[in-house]
C-alpha cells in the first residue's frame, strides 16, 4: 500500500496560551532526546 494523509496546520500551544497571557518558559529542545533527565 501507498497512502497519503493530509495534515492540517493549527495554532500551537504557545500561541493559544500566549493569547491568554500565559508565557511558556524556554527549555532546551534537545532535552527531548534525553528523557532520563525528566525522570525525576
Amino acid at each position: 500500500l501507498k497512502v497519503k494523509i493530509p495534515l492540517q496546520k493549527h495554532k500551537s500551544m504557545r500561541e493559544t496560551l500566549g493569547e491568554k497571557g500565559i508565557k511558556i518558559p524556554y527549555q532546551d529542545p534537545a532535552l527531548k532526546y534525553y528523557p532520563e533527565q525528566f525522570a525525576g
Partner: protein
Amino acid sequence: SASMYINNYADTTYFGAISIGTPPQSLQVLFDTGSSNLWVDSTYCNTQACNAHTKFDPQQSSTFSANGQSVYLPYGAGSLYGQLGYDTVNVGGIVVTNQEIGLSTQEPSNPFLAAKFDGILGLAYPGISAGGQTPVMDNMISQDLLNDDLFAFYLSRGGQQGSELSFGGVDNSMYQGQIYWTPVTSETYWQIGVQGFQINGQETSWCSQGCQSIVDTGTSSLTAPSQFMGNIMQAIGAQQSQYGMYMVDCSQINNLPTLSFVISGTAFPLPPSAYIEQQNQNGYQFCSVNINPTYLPSQNGQPLWIFGDVFLREYYSVYDRTNNQVGFASA
C-alpha cells in the same frame, strides 16, 4: 499556575487524523519523527487537559485488549502516564492490527489543555520507545503493509491545508528535482551527519570535525548548537530582545544571509524567508529569528542541530527504514 516543562510540542502545528478500534474512533495526532510511542487521550483520564480533547474509549471497541502494564512517557512538553493496550489502528487506510497504544490516565500538567491534538504517533526507531512499545511503523513493516518501508513529509509553508504525510512511497508532486540521500548515523532518532555549515555560501568550518542533526517533525524551530548561536545571530544582524527572542528589522529580510548545511556532499540552503518568522501582535508587526540554541551535544559528542519544521518546510523529507537513510528534496 504550573511550573511545567514545555518545549518542543509547544510550537508544533501540523496534525492529522488516525482512527483506533472497532468501530473506528477518530483522533487527531501529531506525527512525530522525534519519538517512538503512540499515545492518545482516553476515557481512563479525567484531568482538565484530557477533558479538553477527543478521548479514545476502549470499552466501545470490540478489538481492544488491555495488557495491564502502565507507562510513563517523559515528553518534553508535560509528561504523562498511561495504561498500555492493544487495538487496531487505521492510518490513512493502512490497517495495523494488534498495535500497542498508550492510553492516557493522567496528564498532570497544563500544556496539553491548549494542545490541538489528541495524541502523538511516534515515527522514530523502536530502541527509544518508552515501555518497549512497538512503534506503528515497525508493525506496518512486520505485517507487510507497505509497498516500500518508508514514509515522507511535505509541510506547507502557508495556509492551514496542503501538508501531507505519505506511507509506503514518496509523492512525486510534492518535490522538485532529485532526492538526496544520507545515512542514519544512530538508529534511535532520525539522526544524520552534517559535514559543513555555510553562511552566504562561505564555509564556517564549524562542522569540519562533524556535526549531527536530528530530523524532527515534532520540533518547530531550527535548533543550533549553543556555541554557534552568537556568530549566527551576528551574521544575521539580530538583536536579542528583553524576552530573549532574536529580532530583525522586517524591512531587511531580503538582505539577510542564506544559511546552508552540507550533508553527504550536497548543500541545503535555507533562505531568510525560511528562518525568519513575521508576527503581528496587537497591530504591531515584528520579525523574529526562528532559530533556538541547544546546550546539549549529540550522543557521540559532536555539536547537535535539530532540523525541525523550519528546515522541513523547505525540504520534502523521506525516511527510509529499509536502507536506514533520510532523503531531502526541494519542497
